């Protein structure tokens, strides 16, 4: 029963987490200019607007309760924080500095925490990865933070690249989808490779009839490889934040804001990694009296985690190809 619950929940989480797409507003195809329909309807409409009646407004009803409110609240907080940064960014000149800068950095940190609770941060991959490893809290925090920093820094790098290189050479550059596309192909490809690598390792153990998989601790190399693969996709949130500050002319501040946002994202992703580590630790505690069951369970969940990593990599890769 326990295994079924874990399987069902992890599958649910895996399937439901598909990376956000690029901005749907932007067109990568050339649209003929004559397709923009412009008729004089607007003037007629405005004239019609002079006659008004009073339609009956029904009060909006609240549905869904706490959980749904939490979801809406998250989006509203993101909007509020973004608006706050925008206001403070524009006010830096008139305010003269440090206070506004400090606020922007603090809000960027908070924005990072809330922003990374959304999709696109491959939390499921991080979660699945730690299902395959010897559960260590230190490793969870390490990987969460490294992932977040790589994620934010790749976003910052793309934003800087667009601002200083691409923008100088093209008339239209704001659509970063093409820049991000190849990074995603690379990232998902690498995630699949790591998943395969882990899977092959565990299958070997399975056929050898491993006595105890608990000896398999995650190496620094393995953590770095996974963090790199997961984080390398530029974070659109960081890109928008840093691009905004760059357009205002604050180059250093855009870099620091990205770093503070990374700290916030690192906090959230670490919590996800920790959750995975703690769940596995607790499961092992339940089963501690039966070494054979522990070994089978370890092996089963590790193979499942590896398959989930491959599955997510394949789904995402197909999505961008």
């Amino acid at each position, binding site marked *: 029963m326990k295994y079924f*619950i874990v399987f069902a929940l992890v599958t649910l989480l895996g399937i439901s987490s598909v990376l956000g797409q690029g901005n749907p507003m932007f067109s990568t195809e050339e649209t003929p200019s004559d397709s923009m329909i412009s008729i004089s309807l607007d003037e007629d409409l405005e004239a019609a607007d002079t006659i008004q009646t009073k339609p009956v407004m*029904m009060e*909006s009803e609240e549905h869904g309760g706490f959980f749904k409110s939490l*979801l809406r609240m998250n989006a509203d907080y993101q909007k509020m924080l973004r608006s706050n940064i925008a206001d403070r960014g*524009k006010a830096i000149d008139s305010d003269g500095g440090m206070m506004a800068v400090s606020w922007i950095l603090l809000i960027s940190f908070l924005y990072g925490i809330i922003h990374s609770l959304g999709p696109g941060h491959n939390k499921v991959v991080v979660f699945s990865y730690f299902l395959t490893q010897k559960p260590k809290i230190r490793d969870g925090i390490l990987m969460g933070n490294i992932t977040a920093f790589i994620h934010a820094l790749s976003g910052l790098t793309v934003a800087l690249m667009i601002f200083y290189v691409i923008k100088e050479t093209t008339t239209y550059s704001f659509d970063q989808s093409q820049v991000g596309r190849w990074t995603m192909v690379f990232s998902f490809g690498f995630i699949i490779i790591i998943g395969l690598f882990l899977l092959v390792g565990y299958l070997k153990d399975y056929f050898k009839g491993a006595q105890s998989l608990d000896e398999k601790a995650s190496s620094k190399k393995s953590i770095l490889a996974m963090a790199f693969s997961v984080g390398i996709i530029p974070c659109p949130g960081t890109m928008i934040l840093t691009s905004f500050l760059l*357009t205002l002319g604050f180059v250093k501040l855009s870099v620091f804001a990205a770093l503070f946002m990374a700290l916030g994202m690192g906090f959230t992703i670490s919590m996800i990694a920790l959750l995975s580590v703690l769940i596995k630790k607790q499961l092992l505690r339940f089963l501690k009296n039966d070494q054979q069951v522990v070994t089978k369970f370890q092996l089963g969940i590790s193979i499942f985690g590896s398959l989930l990593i491959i599955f997510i990599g394949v789904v995402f890769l197909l999505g961008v190809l």
Partner: protein
Amino acid sequence: MLVLISEKKFWLSIIGLFLLISSNNLQAHPHVFIDAQIKVYFDANGVKGYKITWTFDKMFSELMIDEFDDDVDDQFNEQEQKLIYQKAFSNLKKFDYFTKILIDGKPFEIKYITNFKAQIHDEVMTYSFFIPCSIAISRSEKSVKIYTYDESYYMDVSLTNSAISFANSNVYNITYQVEEDENKRYYFDQINPFVLKLSLRKK
């Protein structure tokens, strides 16, 4: 600490945390925020169409203004608007302009829009456009639902009762309500879109 909690509590915690992660995972990741307004236009026969206005968040607005306001006069001239239409709007046809309309429960296909305008007000960018949608209104009640959302959830589109207005509506009885529709979900069944529900009939 973990060893002190009961098995039942442990599993409940896991289920709760999974739900929290998976759902927030899908909800909390818009990159652009839009406040929508809908103005319903009537004529002698009934509904003529809907003018949709989107007000973008300040940060995204700044980026778009920097990108497209070439002459830096804090407004989009005709040429700039044409470029915005081509590069940063026309693609939305593939996404039904983030608008789904149901007339008496049946979907209405948005074939085209007119009167697209991109404007700047107080450093904030707005898009507006008109969706022609003729609906004959008689003395029997007609129900119209207008959903506004981005299925990819790249953009969060919100709508409130105060964002609804009407034009030339004096010969019609109108009841309206904005809410997050409990019966419809998008983005992996996690999010309820905002909907404007209209009940219309001739006086």
